[in-house]
């Protein structure tokens, strides 16, 4: 009896040590088993109702070895630019600087600044100009990028950018309140980023 107790104790100690971190939690089960069991007992001839969760594919588990591709979801309010697309690398314009994301990147949330988002796929590079947004990089080599407005870089009009840059530089000099100054500063930042995107 005592021998069994010690083995139980040892086992619980072991399982406590190998408990995974909260970030590696498995995806929640889409059905409530107790509810389904109760439903089947009451109404055996009708299937239990489906909830939105049962239509969503569960979050893939973090693979033990780093996958060769990064899966990217790039979403805008009016369109889904990239949906679960497998690419080699994305370069994200984060507020802290350009951020290259490869498969196996550590889980991060980054705020985006106006700048170029480049998606590398083999020898192809697709460049988008994003206005602002957020990027969520998950431990399982998935990246979700959310932007308010994103356009392919080749659709930017150089003359409009030069005009805007001049206009906002002049506005910053004539601005009196903090709010006006901030608005002019945003204008300069966005137009400089646009200028850098078409020249660089």
């Amino acid at each position, binding site marked *: 009896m005592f021998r069994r107790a010690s083995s139980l104790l040892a086992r619980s100690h072991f399982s406590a040590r190998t408990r995974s971190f909260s970030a590696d939690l498995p995806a929640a089960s889409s059905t409530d088993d107790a509810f389904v069991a109760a439903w089947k007992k009451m109404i055996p001839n009708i299937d239990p109702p489906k909830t939105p969760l049962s239509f969503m594919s569960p979050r893939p588990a973090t693979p033990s070895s780093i996958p060769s591709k990064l899966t990217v979801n790039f979403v805008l309010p009016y369109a889904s630019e990239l949906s679960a697309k497998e690419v080699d690398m994305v370069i994200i314009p984060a507020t802290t600087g350009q951020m290259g994301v490869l498969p196996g990147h550590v889980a991060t949330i980054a705020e985006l600044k106006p700048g170029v988002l480049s998606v590398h796929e083999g020898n192809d590079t697709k460049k988008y100009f994003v206005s602002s*947004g957020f990027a969520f990089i998950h431990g399982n080599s998935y990246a979700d990028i959310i932007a308010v*407005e994103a356009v392919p870089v080749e659709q930017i009009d150089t003359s409009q950018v030069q005009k805007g840059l001049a206009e906002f530089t002049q506005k910053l000099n004539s601005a009196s309140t*903090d709010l006006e100054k*901030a*608005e002019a500063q*945003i204008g300069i930042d966005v137009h400089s980023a*646009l200028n850098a995107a078409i020249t660089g």
Partner: protein
Amino acid sequence: MASNAAVPFWRAAGMTYITYSNICANLVRNCLKDPYKTEVLSREKVHFSISKWADGKPQKPIIRSDNPEA
């Protein structure tokens, strides 16, 4: 609790993130080449009619529109 960490300049000026990101998005939209520019600007147009209720009856509706002709 307000954070003491450094805030972006637009936040210090009293702007919210929504205001900031909408300004950024609008500036980007205005810098596009022509066929795309009209397309994205028309997508952002808002058109609705609103009427207030008084004494259990709707009053004359007011039309709020970004299209000048409507």
